[in-house]
């Protein structure tokens, strides 16, 4: 049986636009089902605000099933809230109790400017993918399955990294605002596979240096791994570091051949 939580206080960051200073505002949710998702709770709050003639709280969301990476939110000081290995959209009110005060803040990083309220611009993550998150492949008819043999553990490691949905929780959770987990995941995804080898070291250098233009540096706290809705391991950061050094050597050597 579903139960109802009563008297939830929400402290939500409201900010009119990028240049506004912003402030917390408190809202009371008198009653909410514990089966409501966190975002449904915000939907209900917004309906209430709209019916009162106030402006709705702006927040990012899309698929609401944990695969698109659109939702964000710092909930009670944790990226994607207190539940491990899930995005905000998969967080449900049963994780909270009656009379709780829930603090909701946008993700903060110089690379993620606030657009409005809880919505931030995460475009620099796209810049990193543009720099090398692709392979060159023949187009045309689809190739036969298993044409390129890949050892199972290698395929698994690559798939674990490929789980990254690009939500930016790693940056939000990192005390340094670093994007090493995101970049490491995107690199490991392709660098571990045979299909990714041709561009491996150009990818490593281009992606890491694009990352460097926007984000902080890794000090190995491990907060990113704890916040990641896909629980991607910081092992990918070690791979990023190793491949970057190799890339520096190999790319210079290759350039010298020209």
């Amino acid at each position, binding site marked *: 049986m579903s139960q109802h939580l009563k008297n939830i206080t929400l402290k939500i960051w409201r900010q009119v636009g990028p240049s506004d200073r912003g402030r917390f505002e408190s809202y009371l949710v008198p009653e909410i089902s514990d089966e409501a998702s966190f975002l449904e709770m915000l939907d209900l709050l917004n309906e209430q605000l709209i019916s009162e003639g106030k402006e709705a709280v702006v927040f990012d969301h899309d698929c609401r099933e944990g695969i698109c990476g659109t939702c964000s939110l710092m909930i009670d000081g944790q990226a994607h809230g207190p539940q491990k290995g899930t995005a905000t959209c998969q967080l449900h009110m049963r994780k909270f109790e009656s009379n709780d005060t829930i603090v909701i803040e946008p993700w903060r990083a110089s690379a993620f400017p606030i657009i409005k309220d809880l919505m931030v611009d995460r475009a620099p993550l796209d810049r990193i993918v543009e720099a090398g998150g692709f392979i060159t492949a023949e187009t045309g008819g689809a190739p036969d399955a298993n044409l390129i043999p890949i050892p199972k553990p290698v395929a698994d490691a690559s798939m674990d990294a490929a789980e990254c949905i690009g939500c930016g929780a790693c940056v939000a959770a990192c005390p340094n*605002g670093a994007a090493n987990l995101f970049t490491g995941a995107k690199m490991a995804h392709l660098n571990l596979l045979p299909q990714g080898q041709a561009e491996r070291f150009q990818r490593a250098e281009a992606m890491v240096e694009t990352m460097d233009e926007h984000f902080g540096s890794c000090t190995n706290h491990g*907060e990113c791994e704890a916040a990641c809705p896909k629980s991607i391991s910081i092992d990918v950061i070690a791979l*990023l570091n190793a491949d970057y050094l190799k890339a520096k050597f190999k790319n210079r050597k290759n350039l010298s051949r020209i």
Partner: protein
Amino acid sequence: MASRSLRSVGAGFRADGVVPSSLRRMAQTISNERGRGPVSGTAVGKRGKRKPFLIDFYSTAVGKKYVMAVTGIIGIGFVIGHMVGNLKAYLGVIDHQGSRAYDIDVYGEYLRELLVPILPHGYFLWIMRIGLIAAVLLHIHAAYSLTILNRKARPVKYQSSRDYQVANFASRSMRWTGIIVVLFLFWHLADLTWGWFNPGFEHGAVYRNLDASLSRVPVAVLYIVANIALGIHLFHGTWSLFQSIGWNNPRFNQWRKGLATGVATLIVVGNVSFPIMTLAGVIEYDASVPSVQEVSE
């Protein structure tokens, strides 16, 4: 021909680090000023304009972390060697060239004699010292630059309190423990190398100077506090360096935290024992034992 093939591959990557303005307009709705500009980019760079490898590498955050890790390894090696060498204080007086002498004084003299006669007296010690000084300076410079970079990466802090999950006291206090260790390092040199703060300092009389310094309770407390800070710094540093250098092997990863705990414990227990044992009277200078210099003469 070779030139064309490589360039054509490179063309897919951001040439000169510049994102086409059409793309930038499309995706970046707010600010064009947040980026710090291209870093180096030998992957796509033109030939002949490249910076020397190490400077190029050091100009990136990942490169600086490599430098922090490598200089950290040098530091850990030194600190362990230093602690083990100091354990000689517990061996007390030995027979040296037919006379009595403190074992640790003989060891101190031996360090100056290293690689003699290939190098003159004291030269190799200075080579090692210069290496250590360079490592410390690089470690500090990299830490400083990365701290500035990280501050810029989040100019507006979270306005509510963070609920950290795995970041521990050691990882979050690295800058503070580092500063404590550097300040202590100056005191330590002024005390036992230059002798400024050491009552009745005698150059080369290691055991005497050690006892004279650590018999003072406030100094002993300072040594204990500083070495605990050093231990906390080494705990995170030892684990962290494996990640920074990319030494990640599923077979051995489970040992990294254990190794970090071991190194930190070894250093703290070893180094803290000296002030405690001096106060307890286990390390106590006996003026009747001749110094190594007197024995050599």
